[in-house]
């Protein structure tokens, strides 16, 4: 369901899961929790695609720094993707332990 550069999309959706943020706040938050510094071009390229998919939406702002929030569809897509990752991690870790 989450198309495009899925890692970046997951970072953005995960960041927005804690509340609306504008571009720079997103960048700092993602750097905090993932240790990844997204460039402005990458971030907005990904945000535009997520918005086109209806996974995030812009909020009204009288500032150029427009905040975004995750939509209910975005939350569902994020949850589904994270569940898949959890299952994959569990299998991988179990097999490593058994090897």
């Amino acid at each position, binding site marked *: 369901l989450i198309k495009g550069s899925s890692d970046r999309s997951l970072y953005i959706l995960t960041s927005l899961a804690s*509340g*609306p*943020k*504008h*571009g*720079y*706040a997103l*960048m*700092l*938050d993602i750097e*905090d929790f993932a240790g990844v510094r997204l*460039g*402005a*071009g*990458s*971030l*907005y*390229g990904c*945000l*535009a*695609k997520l*918005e*086109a998919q209806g996974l995030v939406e812009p909020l009204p*702002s009288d*500032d*150029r*720094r*427009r*905040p975004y929030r995750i939509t209910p569809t975005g939350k569902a897509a994020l949850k589904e993707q994270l569940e898949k990752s959890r299952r994959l991690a569990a299998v991988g870790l179990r097999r490593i332990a058994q090897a």
Partner: protein
Amino acid sequence: MSWDRIIKMIVRIYPAPWRSRYQDELSALIQDQLADPDSSQWRIAIGCLWGALSERVNPSVRAVPEMAPAVIGQSRFGPLKSSIGRTSLVLGSTAVVLALSLLVAAGFFASQPGKSFGVGVPRFVGKGWPSTGPIANDAGVILHVHWITSSRPVASVISQSPPAGSRIALGGVVTLTISNGSTPSPLPGAKVVVPDVIGLLLSQAVSTLHRAGISDSFGTATCNVGTNHVVAQYPVFGSSVPQGSRISLSCS
């Protein structure tokens, strides 16, 4: 040529529909990034260039037919479609060459000695808000402050524009982005009473408002430094406002 101008030129490579929707936000973000001394201007420029070319190849925002009548009927004309594709490729490649040339030229001019003017911008990033006033006074610059929600310590400077080491006219403006800490999530419909912050230092006022659940996540006040006591606030204290509202502060 400054990095700011170079990146503005690169942003123009994005397709027009994309720019009309995102250019302002992207420009604001780039300014924030350029103000961060940990950021590489090269990386920002190349990232934007890559983003612009990606949008050209695989657009996420499409023009509505009324705005781009030439697009109507495209699906019925395969050769026209491939021609447009080739044209985009050529334009994209030209843009890459042009942008790289500009970057090289900018690097060359930036390295030329004897071009300095005005005053040097001191480093504010990482410092606490109270110490920025004396530094600005010593350097002969004026500060404008933008407070944002951040996980960084309250009242610490997160970024600055222009960056430390660049030169601006005496009395020129340096914009600081300062953390007001993390804001609690607003409860739908919840109201709070505005506290009295008149007479407080701006940093204390922002912290007080923040604790009351008033300042939102996207900036609260703009003030000149050196004169950082709050003399007026709107809405006035005692008002009942929705949680997350913005409060406008004025300094003496």
